[in-house]
């Protein structure tokens, strides 16, 4: 088997006296979709930000294509071009149209000529089904549309890996489907993805592997079937029971797999 | 020598504080009256109050100060420069204070007035006992800003010959031949006065705040 694209070794983050997460070891192979689940406040979002170098780590290492990106002197801006990130609250650039949001990284960071950048940006908007909204400002788009533009913005940089930080939890229920749909399509196209989410239906149907995190450490990981039907730890079972109780009705309506 | 410097400028400081302590309350009284007229008055008085505000806020304070000063220290009314200057400054400030209070009255809203009338209060009673106590509290933060503006604008009465801080600094600079020191001390005094005013009013604002849900 080939080496993983992304790997964390003993990754640790501490705020003052609070251990956010400790000794996280995670391997993401090319084309894999990994879903991280777990209760709120267990450091999942911070973990993604640490991998993307948006937050500094307090121990351990992150490797991208066998190169340690957490090493001193490594250019963080270059790393982030290769690791796309989608945020919970979209964070589109509010003063730019959808097209310009996708283009700006190409023209200002990759120094691509304007016409080529526009072409590429339109392609990406097409990929998320929003070519007809290219001239709209974020304020004129629904939350679901904004999040799809944010995905296109990240994709435009041709990243090696995409990180999703609870991409649907700020959305109204009826808008969640369109975003998950785009993500499922990406997974099918073998994009490498690391997804933090509470959408269990998505986890079961799309993930190659599920990681259950609690209190700053990985409790267990495995295939969707293993985790949902044969969890090794009581904590995992408890969490899944609670969350299906919470989301159960919705899952049934969606006709989740049996 | 430095202590001489100080005691001389301190006398100017007292006058600066005096001008502010006359102008600010006078402006508050006049501004409150105009704000009430604007908010609760009839069509004509409402329009007149609006024009009052627009005219006074559309002209530099120093120009108004000169006009009012020449009226207040003329043949008909003959006040001393201190009083003419302070009251003029108060009139200028009243237009700005009026806008602050008007905003606060609007923020309290018509609902409170309706509720007060519903339990049988007269309009005047409702304004006095229900609306104003709330509006005045709301007005404190923007009003403290105006207070420090009036304190700084009190330096304008220098142009009328009132011996406040700047005028003293000028005389000191002439006698000592140390202009930078003289004006530097004056600036320091202003800075401390403005700072202390802001702090005192912040404290007042904290003390008078109504409790809310966290």
């Amino acid at each position, binding site marked *: 088997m080939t080496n993983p694209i992304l790997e964390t070794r003993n990754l640790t983050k501490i705020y003052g006296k609070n251990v956010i997460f400790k000794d996280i070891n995670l391997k993401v192979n090319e084309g894999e979709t990994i879903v991280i689940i777990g209760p709120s406040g267990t450091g999942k979002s911070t973990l993604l930000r640490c991998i*993307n170098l*948006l937050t500094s780590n307090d121990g351990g290492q992150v490797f991208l294509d066998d190169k340690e990106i957490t090493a001193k002197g490594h250019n*963080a*801006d*270059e*790393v*982030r*071009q290769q690791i*796309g*990130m989608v*945020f919970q609250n979209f*964070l*589109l*650039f*509010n*003063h730019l149209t959808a097209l310009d949001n996708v283009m*700006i*990284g190409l023209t*200002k*960071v990759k120094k691509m000529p304007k016409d080529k950048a526009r072409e590429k940006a339109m392609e990406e908007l097409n990929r998320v089904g929003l070519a007809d909204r290219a001239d709209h*400002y*974020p*304020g*004129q788009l629904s939350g679901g549309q904004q999040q799809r533009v944010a995905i296109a913005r*990240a994709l435009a*940089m041709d990243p090696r890996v995409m990180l999703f930080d609870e991409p649907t939890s700020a959305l109204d229920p009826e808008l969640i489907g369109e975003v998950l749909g785009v993500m499922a399509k990406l997974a099918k196209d073998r994009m490498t993805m690391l997804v933090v989410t509470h959408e269990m239906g998505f986890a079961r149907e799309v993930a190659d592997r599920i990681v259950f995190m609690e209190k700053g450490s990985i409790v267990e990981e495995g295939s969707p079937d293993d985790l949902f039907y044969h969890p090794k730890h009581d904590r995992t079972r408890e969490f899944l029971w609670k969350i299906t109780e919470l989301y159960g009705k919705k899952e049934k309506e969606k006709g989740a797999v049996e | 020598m430095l202590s001489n410097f100080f005691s001389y400028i301190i006398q100017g400081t007292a006058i600066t504080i005096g001008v502010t302590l006359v102008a600010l309350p006078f402006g508050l009284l006049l501004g409150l009256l105009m704000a009430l007229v604007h908010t609760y008055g009839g069509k004509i008085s409402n329009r007149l109050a609006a024009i009052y505000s627009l*005219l006074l806020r*559309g*002209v*530099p*304070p*120093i*120009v*108004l100060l*000169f*006009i009012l000063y*020449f009226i207040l220290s*003329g043949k008909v009314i003959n006040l001393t420069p201190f009083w003419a200057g302070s009251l003029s400054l108060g009139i200028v400030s009243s237009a700005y204070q009026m806008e602050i209070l008007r905003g606060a009255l609007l923020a309290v809203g018509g609902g409170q007035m309706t509720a007060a009338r519903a339990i049988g209060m007269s309009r005047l009673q409702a304004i006095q006992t229900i609306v104003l106590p709330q509006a005045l509290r709301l007005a404190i933060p923007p009003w403290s800003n105006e207070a420090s503006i009036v304190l*700084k*604008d009190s*330096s*304008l009465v*220098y*142009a009328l010959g009132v011996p406040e801080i*700047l005028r003293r*600094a*000028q005389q000191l*600079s002439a006698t000592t031949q*140390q*202009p*930078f*020191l*003289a*004006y*530097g001390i*004056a*600036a320091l005094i*202003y800075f401390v006065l*403005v*700072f202390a005013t802001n702090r005192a009013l912040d404290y007042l604002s904290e003390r008078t705040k109504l409790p809310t849900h966290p």
Partner: protein
Amino acid sequence: MIAFYEFFVRFLPDMLKGAGITVLLTAEGLSAGFILGLLASLARVYGNKFVRGLAVGYIELFRGTPLLMQLFIIYYGLPGLGITFSREWCAFLALGLNSGAYQAEYLRGSLLAIGDGQMMAGRSIGMSRAKTIWYVILPQALRLAIPAWSNEPVSLLKSTAVVFLIAVPELMAKAKSIAAQTYDPIGTYLAVALVYLAMVYLLDAFLRWVERATRIPGFEMESRKA
């Protein structure tokens, strides 16, 4: 009191000349203040401890003392240290430095309102800090600042009236000399007040137009949410 008509015929050219200098001083002070204010606000929000301290010191000092005080320290005080500028330069420096401190606070408010999210989003697609500030934060912050900032030109225009006290020949200085010629200070200053009123009114109307012309659809709503 001489007839208003006669007065205007006789002194209008003089007053217009003064008004021209008033407008020029306002434009200069506003531009210099904008650059200073922009730098100071960026330093205060994004600078390291030292730079931030400098910015805070500048802003607080110039907001905490009267403009007239600043004008006098530059015009009368600095020569005591061997630094001398012409009257016009003193007026320009005082107005620019003073306005810069106020503009810095308007801009700081909107920089803070943009929030950390936009910075994070910019960094996430590989932009540097400086690039994110320039391409993402500033364009939004400047637009967001317009409603609050648009008080500043009018306020500065009114502030320029004090520089006649160091004999810069702007509108108020003209007023003083006209008053001396006519022996009618009240009438003269009333006439000058009218000229100021007209300038303030025009400037205000222009700024309102700018405010409307630079709106981004849905942006205000969006920024309030953030």
